[in-house]
């Protein structure tokens, strides 16, 4: 009878795991929406040991600044956060000071002052309505969380940025819309942002659209999950601790139960 129940046990566990996988994968496939498949890239930050590539992130910041930031804000990110992608205090201060924020002076007037490292990234539009109005009704989403806010975010973003192709003959593309093979419905309000040598990289990397898309994605992936490296690092220690505790408690349990089992 002991045998029977332990057999039932392992059976059951397998079924539970199986069901969990079904539930979770169904969630994922659903989140992906329409079945557009896009290239799966090998990101440095994927996997349980993955970390960000600082050089790529810094190039990505440049792409964001010179290409994306005309329309897209990053309101959850502060200039001081750039320290963790390898900039020093003076560089951050200078970077922040290129933008200006509104403040109220002693006479109660709204005046502009240069942004400080403690300020959040200055958005290109004062509010959502202004952003919509300036872009023909299409709202350019804030990019602070974009990689987390899309299923398979990094691959999706890279695909979208490189997915501008000529529309097939039968597809009518209205004015102010653009054809993108990876966008749901294929018609997107954002014109193709990345062209060869759209930016000039200081480190001499060739600025192809694919390279720029990878770099800006690496930057945005970090902006979505700035805690990722700390999280994985702490995770490894916690897992090691728990495996040790599991092993210890298993043998302690066997020891304690031995007299009962041997009766």
């Amino acid at each position: 009878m002991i045998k029977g129940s332990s057999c039932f046990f392992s059976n059951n566990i397998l079924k539970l795991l199986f069901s969990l996988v079904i539930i979770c994968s169904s969630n994922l496939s659903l989140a992906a929406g329409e079945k557009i498949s896009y290239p799966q890239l090998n990101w440095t930050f994927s996997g349980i040991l993955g970390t960000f590539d600082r050089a790529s992130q810094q190039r990505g910041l440049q792409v964001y600044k010179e290409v994306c930031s005309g329309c897209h804000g990053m309101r959850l990110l502060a200039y001081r956060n750039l320290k963790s992608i390898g900039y020093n205090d003076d560089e951050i201060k200078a970077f922040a000071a290129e933008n200006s924020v509104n403040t109220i002076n002693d006479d109660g007037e709204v005046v502009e002052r240069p942004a400080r490292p403690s300020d959040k990234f200055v958005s290109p539009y004062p509010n959502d309505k202004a952003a919509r109005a300036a872009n023909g009704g299409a709202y350019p989403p804030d990019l602070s969380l974009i990689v987390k806010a899309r299923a398979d975010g990094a691959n999706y973003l890279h695909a979208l940025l490189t997915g501008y192709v000529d529309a097939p003959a039968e597809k009518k593309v209205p004015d102010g819309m653009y054809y993108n093979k990876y966008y749901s419905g294929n018609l997107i309000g954002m014109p193709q942002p990345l062209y060869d040598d759209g930016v000039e990289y200081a480190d001499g990397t060739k600025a192809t659209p694919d390279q720029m898309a990878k770099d800006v994605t690496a930057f945005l992936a970090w902006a979505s999950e700035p805690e990722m490296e700390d999280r994985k690092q702490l995770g490894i220690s916690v897992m090691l601790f728990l495996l040790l505790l599991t092993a210890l408690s298993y043998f302690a349990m066997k020891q304690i139960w031995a007299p009962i089992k041997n009766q």
Partner: protein
Amino acid sequence: MSKSKFKNPVVKWIDHRLPVFSFMDHELNHYPTPKNLNYFWNFGSLAGFALVTMIITGIVLSMNYTAHVDYAFDSVERIMRDVNHGWLIRYIHMNGASFFFIVVYIHIFRGLYYGSYKAPRELLWILGVLILLLMMATAFMGYVLPWGQMSFWGATVITNLFSAIPLVGESIVTWLWGGFSVDNSTLNRFFSLHFVLPFVIVGVVILHLVALHRFGSNNPIGIDVRGTQDTVPFSPYYTIKDLFGLSVFLSFFAAAVFFFPNFMGHPDNYIEANPMVTPAHIVPEWYFLPFYAILRAVPDKLGGVLFMFGAIAVLFILPWLDRSPVRSSQFRPIFKIFFWILFLDCILLGYLGAMPAEGIYVILSRIATAYYFFHFLILFPLLPYIEKTKPLPISISEPVLGGGSPASAFAMREKK
């Protein structure tokens, strides 16, 4: 027990006046527990652990959270980015909800398989179903707090369920919202209730434990304990087994928190709530999916809501639907087969709840829903008449442990 139980004079002094130590010694230390419990009996203590974890992390999160439509989303992101270890605490709380439900669902299926709901444990079971209901309410309201797109639209859809009630439905929904849509008042009251309901759960859990300790745990063969030869004291036998179970549980939990924190969440909830735009596919959190499938399976608004709540209501009367005197499925061959069908049916409902409500999915949802109610309302009462159960063993210790001396584990422990 003798008065010399405690050596420490302070403990002795207090215990004489306020017998908390005697109580703990009796309920957590000596408490006689069947010695043949398998690992499925770990999930009760795991659920308790999950509850405490959720309460502690929740209190800490509330210190940094702002319940206002304009600040809620950003305050959660501030927790993730700026608060010391905020990301860790928030991911524990977020994934903790999912793991709490995993543990509780396994706990419930264990009760179903081994007939733990049968006399004299009916109230124990009913209190458990009550805990499940409270957990669902708490989890639902908690999911609203980050004020993402799924929060907002989940709140809208679920509160609208009540509009199905004839005559007063619309007024009830307006009352729930405190306005004409899900808005700041709704968020504030949900925060308040999300904070307080877990303590109500703690109260019901205490009653659940009192009811449990009245007759003790059920066990895999489902027959009553005959005497000390059938039991072991809770400590150290089940304290160490629970610790082992906890370590295994925590290993899975930590893997999720540290390496796949958003796996069980939904990307749309990282977009701030927008009352003007509904996301393309809205789905509840995975633990509500079977119920969501039942809701959508019924092509009538009120009917869907009634069936969905009925799916839980039927659990309350389970002890009176199943009249078989045999508890454990091990001795009920037909019941056992149907148990696994029910289990797969619930998984199927969960899967269907995540699929769009169209085509084959709707038909399958209806079949699965029909089976769910058939199982409890028709099969359960009928089965005792047609099923021939296997012979029951005489006692826990003899057949299971192959006979031997009836030397009690208490004696083994006293020797130490």
